[in-house]
């Protein structure tokens, strides 16, 4: 390796950075020579739901370089720090390369045929003895569209069970039910362009600077160009995002429900609402109250929506005076009034952004509804630069789990198993007998693992996810998995995880550019990539694994494809055609950096429900929430009250525990934790605590403490000077660390409407060790 080649590589790196920054710099000819032999192709990033474009450089069968894709509209040539690890993720030393079968306490290497024969026999045995609802598959928002689609088709259309769930239930389910109850169609009306075009941004429980850094940069760039731009951070923890916001407003956990109602109260009280918009585009409804927390096994809930008038809604809001909510939330009454006026300011383009703070909430659906209420009252919706936007955490939480519908109750394109017409449509497209898809949903994710614990489910196959680290009240579900008595766990993954530890069979999987795929991001953008390198050893694509099981169970006829990915795509897109969920032919995506659906006549849609943008809205209609047919194409403002959390601090357990992510790690750390570099930047979990709380307990920085909830105990060092700072009465612990399973402490209480557990709120005590 000569010195001069190195200089050329550096010149190449600089030229790429200049180009990404929009400055024209000619690449020296010699630097092109330094890159000789590298073949570049496009892919979406493997990590979060932002959906950044990456150019992947391959030489002699290995990835040797990556670039932020300058042609990708999401990230325009930049990646966040996780970009350093994209390619190395595939090359960890402990990569799984052979199927493994449990023999007593040992996992023993096996051939694919042995492993698949055993798996198929366990499926057949359970189905024969206990019926199809005794087998299940649990995937994730990291499944490609093809994998999720094949799994759904096999389980719902072949085996005949609705036992398919995804980790998105732990992550995005409340966003889905929020969209469905308010607009009768999942996913946002706006897109990332709103980050550049708006001037007022309310962040609710979203640490964008660390968790969506590329999107946060777009926001910051907007502010640098436009001094009018304001970023307001509502949170229960002071973060890097709060530091850069114009205003940080701390509130007590769970009181976001009351705050949004108080903002609506002031908007109504001070007549700041858009009466014409409301008249044309909104209906009012109320649902059940005191709806429970899903803490008991087999919990069931069905809402009972009742129409109400605007006047009745105004009456409902009367309770939520700024003074009452100030008391409840800790936010001063004058701040609430100021924020309501900012939301309603007619000269401002207002956006709300949120992620897990809203979604992982025992009233997650409600709090999503309440955010939409404010936008619907003020008419600040479906316009360039003014929209509510729910951000996502996984690369295909939208594309796969939500759009393909890999939840127990869903089918592709927003359809549900409970609707006979929807089932009939799916059965027709899938070419299966009428009545094959069961009409009743079975279990949400938490209930699925409760059923495994009870023994109602015998066989569970997990792919691209790590439930035995990421579920709440983890102790119960980890023990349940190893209870024996016919229980059988199959885990497909690329690395050993906390879930492979409890597995009976481990299947080595191909990942990211080791296979062809499609992901869909948070702004409805569908992004395709081709296989670029071979997976290591005998690792195989999850799609192949699903189809191989189907074949062995006698359902091979469901997958009669030659070019599997393309043919699945063409079949899948029939579901959304003419439904406002149109997708383009496969070839179109091979040539673009993604398109936002609905894609009609080759044109993507930036703003749904808006005339001139959305082809489903006719001339003269302006804005039309056309998916909500039963309410005449109008959206719903819901009267949703404040109700307390499932568990709140008391004398015995005086602190709130909140869990979440940090910049250097992603989810349970199975990919980022592999890479020693990331481990070093943020090696293990710490307990963030407010210095005054630490002082009261006599705890010093980095001293170890014992944290205990009603469900578990963990020992961690306290961090008083970290990037994130807990507010008084709160502690925060990230959940990536496989050696410190904080989720053992979390409560498995969930939103009765979405089924999504609350990882942000439970009660703990903190003691010196």
């Amino acid at each position, binding site marked *: 390796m000569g010195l001069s080649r190195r200089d050329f590589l550096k010149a190449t790196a600089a030229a790429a950075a200049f180009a990404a920054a929009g400055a024209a710099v000619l690449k020296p000819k010699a630097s092109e020579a330094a890159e000789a032999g*590298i073949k570049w192709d496009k892919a979406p990033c493997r990590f979060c739901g932002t959906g950044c474009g990456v150019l992947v450089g391959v030489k002699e069968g290995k990835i040797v*370089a990556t670039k932020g894709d300058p042609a990708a509209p999401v990230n325009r040539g930049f990646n966040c720090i996780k970009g350093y690890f994209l390619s190395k993720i595939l090359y960890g030393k402990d990569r799984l390369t052979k199927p493994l079968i449990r023999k007593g306490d040992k996992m023993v290497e096996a051939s694919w045929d042995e492993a698949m024969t055993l798996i198929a026999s366990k499926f057949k045995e359970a189905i024969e003895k206990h019926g199809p609802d005794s087998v299940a598959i649990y995937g994730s928002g990291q499944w490609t569209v093809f994998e999720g689609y094949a799994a759904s088709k096999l389980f719902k259309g072949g085996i005949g069970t609705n036992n398919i769930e995804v980790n998105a239930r732990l992550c995005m389910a409340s966003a889905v039910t929020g969209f469905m109850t308010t607009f009768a169609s999942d996913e946002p009306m706006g897109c990332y362009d709103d980050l550049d075009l708006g001037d007022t941004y309310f962040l609710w429980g979203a640490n964008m600077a660390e968790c969506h*850094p590329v999107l946060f940069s777009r926001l910051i760039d907007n502010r640098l160009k436009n001094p009018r731009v304001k970023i307001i951070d509502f949170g229960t923890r002071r973060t890097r995002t709060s530091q850069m916001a114009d205003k940080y407003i701390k509130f007590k956990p769970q009181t976001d429900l009351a705050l949004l109602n108080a903002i609506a109260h002031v908007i109504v009280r001070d007549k700041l609402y858009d009466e014409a918009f409301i008249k044309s585009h909104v209906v009012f409804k109320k649902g059940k109250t005191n709806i429970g927390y899903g803490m008991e096994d087999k919990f069931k809930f069905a809402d009972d929506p009742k129409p109400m008038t605007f006047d009745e809604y105004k009456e409902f809001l009367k309770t939520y005076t700024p003074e009452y909510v100030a008391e409840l939330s800790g936010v001063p009454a004058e701040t609430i009034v100021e924020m309501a006026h900012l939301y309603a300011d007619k000269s401002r383009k207002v956006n709300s952004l949120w992620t897990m703070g809203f979604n992982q909430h025992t009233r997650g659906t409600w709090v999503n509804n309440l955010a939409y209420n404010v936008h619907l009252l003020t008419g600040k919706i479906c316009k360039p630069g003014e929209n509510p936007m729910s951000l996502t955490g996984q690369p295909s939480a939208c594309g796969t789990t939500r759009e393909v519908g890999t939840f127990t109750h869903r089918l592709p394109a927003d359809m549900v198993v409970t609707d006979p017409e929807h089932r009939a449509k799916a059965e027709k497209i899938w070419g299966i007998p009428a009545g094959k898809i069961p009409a009743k949903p079975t279990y949400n994710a938490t209930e699925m693992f409760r059923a495994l614990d009870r023994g109602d489910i015998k066989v569970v196959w997990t792919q691209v996810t790590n439930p035995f680290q990421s579920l709440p009240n983890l102790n119960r579900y980890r023990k349940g998995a190893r209870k024996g008595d016919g229980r059988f766990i199959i885990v497909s993954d690329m690395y050993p995880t906390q879930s492979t530890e409890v597995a009976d069979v481990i299947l080595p999987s191909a990942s990211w550019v080791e296979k062809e795929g499609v992901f869909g991001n948070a702004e409805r953008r569908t992004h395709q990539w081709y296989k670029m390198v071979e997976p290591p050893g005998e690792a195989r694509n999850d799609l192949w694994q699903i189809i191989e099981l189907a074949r062995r169970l006698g359902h091979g006829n469901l997958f009669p494809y030659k070019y599997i990915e393309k043919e699945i795509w063409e079949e899948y897109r029939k579901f959304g055609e003419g439904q406002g969920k149109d997708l383009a032919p496969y070839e179109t995506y091979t040539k673009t950096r993604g398109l936002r659906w609905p894609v009609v006549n080759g044109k993507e849609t930036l703003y749904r429900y808006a005339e001139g943008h959305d082809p489903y809205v006719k001339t003269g209609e302006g804005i039309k929430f056309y998916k909500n047919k039963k309410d005449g194409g109008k959206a719903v403002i819901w009267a949703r009250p404040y109700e307390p959390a499932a568990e709140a601090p008391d004398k015995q357990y005086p602190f709130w525990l909140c869990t979440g992510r940090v910049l250097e790690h992603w989810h349970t750390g199975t990919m980022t934790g592999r890479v020693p570099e990331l481990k070093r930047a943020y090696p293990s979990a710490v307990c963030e605590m407010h210095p005054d709380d630490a002082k009261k307990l006599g705890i010093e920085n980095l001293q170890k403490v014992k944290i205990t909830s009603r469900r578990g105990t963990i020992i961690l060092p306290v961090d008083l000077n970290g990037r994130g700072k807990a507010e008084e009465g709160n502690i925060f612990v990230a959940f990536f660390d496989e050696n410190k399973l904080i989720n053992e402490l979390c409560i498995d209480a969930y939103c009765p409407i979405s089924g999504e557990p609350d990882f942000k709120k439970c009660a703990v005590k903190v003691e010196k060790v």
Partner: protein
Amino acid sequence: MPVSGIVVRCLDGCADAVAGRIAAFEGVEVHGVLPDGRIVAVVEADTVQGEVDIVSRLHEVEDVITVHLAYHNFEDI
């Protein structure tokens, strides 16, 4: 040795000062300051670990808002 091209965004009017601060880091070469105040730099270290350590520390430098990765070549490790 891995090499990466990065773009640093800093507070308004601070680009020259920040460029000076980050140029003092071992393994960082400042290649230019753009008219809009962004700084283009090249990071190199013996390992990717070294690069990430540098970039993590750049995030903490006074007046730095964001550090973005544009290009990463790790062919030689």
